């Protein structure tokens, strides 16, 4: 069965460690393979913690960039094998 790829946004602005990672991992589990999760955070350590945590589960970091002063967007391609 071919699943249509979707994009989901997750706004985690205001959250601090460990919740951005926990909530990102939780959200990824709900998505289908190939879906893209767009995570917004304003807690700098999350830009390292989130990629580090999700990559070990096989998810792919498509990009991570600062979109505004102190606000970051991380795009993650889901890979729930």
């Amino acid at each position: 069965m071919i699943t249509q790829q979707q994009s989901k946004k997750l706004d985690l602005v205001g959250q601090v460690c460990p919740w951005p990672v926990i909530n990102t991992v939780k959200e990824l589990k709900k998505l289908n393979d190939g879906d893209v999760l767009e995570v917004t955070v304003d807690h700098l350590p999350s830009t390292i913690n989130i990629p580090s945590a999700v990559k070990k589960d096989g998810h792919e970091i498509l990009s991570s960039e600062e979109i505004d002063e102190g606000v970051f967007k991380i795009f993650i391609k889901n890979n729930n094998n």
Partner: protein
Amino acid sequence: MSILLDSVWLKENLNNTNFIVLDIRSPREYNSAHIPNSRLVPYDKILSFNDTASYFDVASKEQIEELLGILGVDINSTLVICGDRGGATASRLFWSLAYYGLSVKFLDISFSKWTSLGYPVTDKVEIIDNSNFTITQSTVDFKVDHEYVLSKIDDSNSILLDTRSPEEFNGTIAAGPKSGRIPNSKNFPWEIAVGDDGYIFKNIENLNTLFEKFGITKDKEIICYCQVGEKASHTFVALQICGYNNVKIYDRSFADWSTRDNLPIES
């Protein structure tokens, strides 16, 4: 001399140029409202990291000198840390500056509390004259690495304090690639030292009672860690407030420990 600065006193002394308030909240929050004459500290300027690392290091001496120079800090200034969200990020700033031997204090209340009390705020960003800031002091013995921690796992004279949540400590959730804790750690969830009603820390009597309850005694060396060194910094400051004088932070924390294959993890 107390580490905490009384917010009532600061409110009455906002024009005292000997005290410089450093605001570590996000730029968006700072631009919206901040304490008059306070200076925004961009969080990335107090850290050293690269895209492939899973942890943060404290900024270099040169980075801190450049930052404080841009912020127009005079070598004789007393720095006052202002934060929010429980004060963990602000505590990391406090620890980083204290590590370089600088004179630093902590505003006793959060910025949210400051505003709720109706204390002065502004959205005006002052133009600051840069200074030439040079750190002349040696670093203070506040920082340890994984090898040092490993050597202390079975040392009864040291306490390894895991300041993360009980769930992270027990390994039921993980904020990184691996769950668990450093063997023989004691769990002291950092938030229990946060004060009520907007105070960054509990009062000293309650902190002392708390530390006593957890068996954290002044005759031991205390090594705090968390995931990336923020929450550990809050506990570090709380211990300093109570007069513990042998406290260190494993600043790379579990984010570093858990990505090294040869180090033991307990869960």
